[in-house]
């Protein structure tokens, strides 16, 4: 393996890891606080991507630069509206129920939203690359890379990680989330409304998934099923890190993103296999994930 391949694979891996991190950290946050494995998280990614492309196509004729706030608007809109509705009217009904039931219900929601997505946006590819084309290209070892992928995506992921860490450790909103995560009843006993915390956390997680989709939308053609690949990969990242681990999700996303990219450059037939092989290996050795702690079950 020569230096060129190493550098190119590293750039691709970091760019892909940034997107996977955004989605998996939302998934992990929701699981950490609400103890619910939300398969419908993949739908939020897909809707974020389609909403961003729709807004992008609408505003690009006015000014291509408007597509950037469009990405943010799509993420916040989808996360707040769709995420809020899902939590308030569906997930709230299954908190504390059997985990298999929660999984089945969120899987059913994922399938319903996937079908609805085909009704809204059709099955033809949608491509809205204006945000990608606006930023200059960077030449790395003679290969042209967009700064959107090499700088913007990792930058947004890094800012998200820093912002989440700051929010959770230095604000009242974050402290309240940590308290509910650790002990819902004890949190209630000091005046915290856990239902409100659940709603806000779910919306935050949903915005992160939709942001991942919105940022991915200029880099690829949008097709039905885009949420499937991402939710499965996000599960691999979140499980490898340990569900509920914010910083761990960043490291696991980087590990899996880089391994996948190196596989593409060296043994492309193993592209799909590599992330899941890492996950299985980690879980066999550490069932709680690389950074997860075993929890004592209260009886």
């Amino acid at each position, binding site marked *: 393996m020569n230096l060129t391949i190493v550098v190119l694979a590293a750039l691709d891996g970091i760019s892909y890891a940034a997107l996977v991190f955004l989605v998996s950290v939302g998934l992990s946050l929701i699981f950490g606080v609400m103890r619910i494995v939300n398969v419908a998280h993949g739908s939020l990614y897909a809707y974020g991507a389609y909403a961003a492309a729709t807004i992008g196509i609408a505003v690009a004729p006015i000014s291509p630069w408007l597509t950037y706030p469009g990405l943010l608007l799509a993420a916040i809109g989808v996360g707040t509206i769709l995420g809020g509705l899902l939590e308030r009217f569906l997930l709230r009904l299954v908190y504390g129920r059997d985990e298999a039931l929660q999984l089945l219900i969120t899987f059913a929601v994922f399938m319903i939203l996937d079908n609805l997505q085909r009704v809204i946006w059709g099955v033809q590819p949608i491509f809205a690359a204006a945000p990608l084309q606006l930023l200059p290209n960077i030449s790395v070892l003679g290969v042209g890379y967009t700064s959107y992928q090499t700088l913007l995506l990792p930058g947004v992921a890094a800012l998200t990680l820093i912002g989440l860490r700051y929010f959770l450790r230095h604000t*009242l909103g974050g*402290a*309240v989330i*940590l*308290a509910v995560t*650790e*002990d819902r*009843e*004890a*949190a*209630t*006993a*000091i*005046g*915290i*409304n*856990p239902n409100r915390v659940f709603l806000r956390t779910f919306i935050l997680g949903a915005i992160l998934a939709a942001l991942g989709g919105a940022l991915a939308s200029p880099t690829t053609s949008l097709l039905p099923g885009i949420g499937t690949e991402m939710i499965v990969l996000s599960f691999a990242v979140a499980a490898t890190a340990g569900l509920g681990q914010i910083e761990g999700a960043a490291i696991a996303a980087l590990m899996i993103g880089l391994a996948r990219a190196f596989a593409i450059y060296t043994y492309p037939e193993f592209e799909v296999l590599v992330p899941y092989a890492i996950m299985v290996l980690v879980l066999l050795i550490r069932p709680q994930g690389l950074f997860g702690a075993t929890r004592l079950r209260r009886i």
Partner: protein
Amino acid sequence: MMLALEQVRVSIAGVVVLRDVSFALEAGSTVALVGRNGAGKTTTVRTIMGFTAAAGRILFDGADLARTPPHERPGLGIGYAPEDRRLFSAFSVEENLLLPARVGGLGPAETKRRLERAYGVLPEMAELRARPAGSVSGGQGKMVALARALILGTKLVLLDEPFQGLAPVLAQRYAEALRRLRSQDRDITLLITESNPKLLAAISERTLTIERGEVAPGASGPALPRADPPILSR
């Protein structure tokens, strides 16, 4: 009456845990609720906090608590220290004490006043304030849980088996803290559950006995004779 339970009935997983429990606490009283393990002590205090679905009425300061969701009950002036402490290990001891005040929207002056009140009752907390809550011993954790309950408990404090698992020295200190609290704040109402009635003989003014989910008839009658020193008898 500060607190009155009227015909409170609780079932958990089809098993009746509290059977038409009725008793009342006068403002400023210290009442022990004693009974064996599984008698329904913890369920009684958790029901007052709203953590279990219950039939019957619970009146606090004359108002029916049925209309007050669990997370709003601390705001009424009810503090609760659970048997198993349940501190937030992600925070320091002082952050555990400050979080209820921040959540309750107390101003800086009121927060400082309540913190000083808690430290006044439990002076040893001052040394622990910067320690991660997850690193304190079980006994220290009980003290922190009491201090946290005092931040919000301006009218009623519910202490669930506070002496459970405490070494004799710590039990003595805990009892002294309760005495300090009583001497500093004569209006506060304390409901303390315990398995061993002797432990609270010197602290409580009245003892209620709970057995198989029923508070014994006449339990809400006059207080047990108050024992003077020793503070705590085992």
